[in-house]
């Protein structure tokens, strides 16, 4: 490593850099105006290809909701200009040309999608190489009539594992590119904000944890906020992984004694495992954690709880206790259930196994029942419960009516597919995947038809196609929300300065 010499050439180069930035802006603005005034070059392709273009992000043949933000893209090739003609129903046409990427104006796009519901958009892309236009075969984007929720909430966090610096929970309006912070830990220095959860996309019922010197579990129930101390004498830790009961009266949590260990060989990076874990249900009205012996066995790891759509069954992952980390790769979780009576907060006396992953030498994580009660989607990995760094992690769908399970090949990739969440109407799901660079999780959205067949997933669109390339944060726990989340920050600050509301325990 040597430093550049400090000389006039470098200074001029630097000034050039500044001018370049300013120049880019001027050029971009100029070009934008040029396009607006319909002065784009006429495309006369000398080469018409039979194959469809290879796009980034890959939006060829995807199924999209009618309220999604423009799916801006570029072609994975070297070119000096790119041209796209987007045709919708009723002869609506958007014609765009740019030197770098296709950025579709939000208003035109929104209008076109709205008028093309149940139909498809036909997109013809051409690129200019060596002063000649090359046209690809047109491709379609299917515009679903099924609506999607207002937005997504996710945490942006550097994949830095166990200690934390800057992070925040953010919300994104799906119909445009607006992203805004809900809470950042700059407001609570030295803290970690995590595990945001909503009652079936309802923003009036929300919880998230703030870890650190000043911290607790922020619980917003019917719009009223409280800050809880969730460590009880009978539980091994604070509440960890949450899932709201559909009634809004309970939240299921795991309590975990978690450890992090690192791989030595390349290809695998990190494992997070439990030395012990249990499942409890938090009764919001009585401020009480409730559980039963079947969910708190020393010889068993219980984790990732979730409630069925009718609220009468508690699903969770269950594995035989192993010595950690010595037997880390022998820990395998089955998908199990126990009945739950929401009227009095009691559990059944039997545990059922819904999916025997152990028999397949596999392990289940993140079981997430669809709000319509038809399916449970889960992640399947070779061992353990930290699917986020398992390349083999794939999404599976369990049909609760037929009890059949299948790998959702329509959406899986060679890399990690892990956390996932359902839209409130159960017809869209979002999942995190590392398929882009193997390092950072990115949110993909997919459609699920009435027969349980998924459409081709699409990457959450961004205004700039290079956005993900530059982003040094992972999208963690993407969750759908039905409206804009409004956490009262001054109130949260006050609560952080006040004594926490202590949760009690009842078995």
């Amino acid at each position, binding site marked *: *490593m040597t430093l550049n010499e400090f000389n006039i050439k470098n200074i001029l180069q630097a000034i050039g850099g500044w001018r370049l930035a300013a120049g880019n802006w001027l050029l971009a603005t100029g070009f934008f105006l040029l396009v607006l005034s319909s002065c784009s070059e006429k495309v006369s392709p000398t080469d018409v290809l039979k194959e469809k273009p290879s796009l980034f992000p890959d939006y060829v043949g995807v199924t999209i909701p009618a309220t999604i933000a423009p799916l801006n893209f570029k072609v994975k090739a070297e070119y000096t200009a790119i041209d796209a003609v987007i045709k919708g129903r009723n002869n609506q046409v958007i014609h765009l040309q740019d030197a770098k990427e296709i950025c579709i104006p939000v208003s035109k796009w929104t209008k076109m999608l709205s008028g093309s519901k149940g139909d498809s958009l036909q997109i013809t892309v051409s690129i200019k190489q060596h002063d000649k236009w090359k046209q690809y075969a047109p491709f379609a984007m299917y515009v679903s009539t099924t609506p999607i929720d207002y937005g997504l909430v996710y945490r942006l966090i550097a994949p830095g594992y166990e200690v934390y610096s800057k992070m925040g929970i953010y919300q994104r309006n799906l119909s445009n590119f607006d992203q805004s912070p809900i809470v950042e830990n700059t407001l609570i220095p030295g803290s970690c904000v995590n595990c945001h959860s909503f009652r079936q996309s309802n923003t009036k019922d929300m919880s998230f944890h703030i870890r650190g010197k000043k911290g607790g579990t922020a619980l917003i129930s019917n719009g009223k906020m409280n800050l809880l101390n969730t460590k009880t004498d009978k539980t091994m830790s604070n509440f960890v992984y949450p899932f709201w009961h559909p009634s809004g009266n309970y939240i299921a949590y795991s309590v975990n004694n978690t450890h992090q260990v690192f791989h030595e060989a390349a290809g*695998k990076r990190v494992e997070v495992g439990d030395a012990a874990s249990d499942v409890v249900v938090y009764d919001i009205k009585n401020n009480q954690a409730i559980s039963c012996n079947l969910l708190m066995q020393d010889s068993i790891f219980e984790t990732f709880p979730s409630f069925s759509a009718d609220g009468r069954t508690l699903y969770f992952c269950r594995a035989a206790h192993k010595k950690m980390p010595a037997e880390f790769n022998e820990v395998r979780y089955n998908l199990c259930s126990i009945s739950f009576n929401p009227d009095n907060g009691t559990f059944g006396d039997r545990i059922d196994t819904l999916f025997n992953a152990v028999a397949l030498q596999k392990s289940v994580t993140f079981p997430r029942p669809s709000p319509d009660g038809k399916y449970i989607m889960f992640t399947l990995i070779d061992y353990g419960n930290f699917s986020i760094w398992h390349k083999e992690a794939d999404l599976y769908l369990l049909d609760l009516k037929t009890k059949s399970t299948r790998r959702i090949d329509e959406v899986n990739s060679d890399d990690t597919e892990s956390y996932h969440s359902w839209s409130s109407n159960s017809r869209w799901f979002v999942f995190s995947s590392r398929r882009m660079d193997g390092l950072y999780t990115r949110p993909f959205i997919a459609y699920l038809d009435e027969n349980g067949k998924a459409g081709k997933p699409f990457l959450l669109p961004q205004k700039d196609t290079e956005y993900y390339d530059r982003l040094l944060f992972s999208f963690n726990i993407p969750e759908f929300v039905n409206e804009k989340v409004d956490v009262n920050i001054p109130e949260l600050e006050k609560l952080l300065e006040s004594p926490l509301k202590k949760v009690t325990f009842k078995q």
Partner: protein
Amino acid sequence: MSASEKKRFGIVALGLTFLSFLFFQLFYAYHLFFKEQIQLFLFNSDYFLSYFNKPAWLACYAGDYLTQFFYLRGGGATVLSLLFCLEWLLCSFVIKRISATKNAPLWGLFPVAIDWMLHCDLLYRVSASVGFILVLILFLIYSSISKRWLSTAFGLIMAFIGYWLAGSSFLVFPLLIMVYDWEKGRSYLLKWLLIGAVIFLIPIALRHYYLLTITQSYIYPAMNLQSILLRASLILVLMAAFFLKRFEVKYSRIFNITIPFAFIFLLLFGIRANASFDREKILSLDNEFYFGNTDRVIELSQKYNLKSRSATYFTNMALAKKGELPEYLLDFYQPAASGLILPVMPDENWQSIFVSNEVFFLLGDMNLAQHSAMLGNTFSPYQRSSRMIKRLAEINMVNEDSAGANKYLRILSKTLFHKKWAESRQAMNHVSASDKWLIGKRAQIPQVDTLRKSNYYLTSLSFLVEQNPNNLIALDYLLCYHLLNKDLKSFRKVYDQYGRLINRPVPSLYGEALLIQLLSSQASQDEVASYAISPKKIKDFADYTQLFEKTKGEINALSGRFGKSYWFYYHFATIQKR
């Protein structure tokens, strides 16, 4: 401006620029390198727009743009000295305009002295100075507007957007216009109250939008409270200039002597209070190691003789890279084994976490290197560090993860000074199968997998050696780890298993440790001979033992000849468990 005033301006400007350049270039250069390494300035619209997420976007963008020049040798000192010169010039104009003092060029030095002092802090940003300069310029524009309604309108508009442009420095603006108006005999109480209220309430009103604490909102873009001294100094200087103006004609000589003297005193006092020359030394070791100048690291370390874990950390890496760790380990301060590897723990400071990846990368432990580099990036003050991005690119190249490596290289290709590096690494990645450096680094990675906690260094080192006995750096680290913890049994076991396979004369330190172990295990002559320890070393050991017995372990008697031997360390070093 009279000829003498012009001359005075010229002398002060040149003197200030020259002095500040000399200071930052000769005494504080490594701080400036480090400041560049903890930021990443990109030339693209998305990056530019990210500045609007917090206040002071203009000050921050311009400040960070200038900070990237700190990458160049002499670049940091040049930028800061020119910035100080501009700051002084503007301060002088402001002071002159408000107080009409003849000594404005001298009074103008005081805020610069404070800013100079503040720049000695590792976390003080150029943006804070730029924000201050912006406020001075805005005030000068305000004060040059003669029409009353226009100046009021300008003041009001600025009141609303000043914080957005320049950050907390703008809080000084209402005070400046109030003093200016008052001095000009214009009393606009309502205007002052309105502008003052808007400016002072905007940070608190917008802090939830910007997600800042109350303190952060009033000091942004600076990071600590000390930064308000810059604003305070301007107000104090204005007050002093104003009240002492009546004496300046009568006592002009006293003023001419006293003010520069006070400036020098303030500057020296400020530098003494705020600069850390020990940290500069540690950063010099860090940077020279980072630049690949291992000989320079050892040379500097010998010169400084610091009793610091961080200094030892860089020295040990430089020695290991040259294959000299077991020869000269004890020539340097060794805080047991904690100078070998810096832990990545929540209670560690961010600078320590920032540089902790270096040793893992050197050893070939790519997963922990990646873990540390990601944390280093996250814990760096702006969460985007050019140095960490470079390291992450290298790690992914070594791991043969081209998608990951390309991501980081593409980011670096948007920078001014790291672009060439990224291009060269991109080229290297394309011919990775034949690149010597990559082949060497890839050979260090274990092929078999195991799990360990991030702070179980012994497990990691043992595994690296077990998987690749030719990884000499890892082997020396493992052996020295045992020696510094006085675990001679483990040392001998590892040495017998792997150390003896290495084709090199028995290193000095290992020979000394082996002799202790062989003696305590009552090894036979043949056994001792089998280690091929040099006869001189054996004689030295006999001398040491004799002297130890003769003086009954008198430390002073032994330290002269044997102070840097392992025998001395073994007998006299006390190990404190953390």
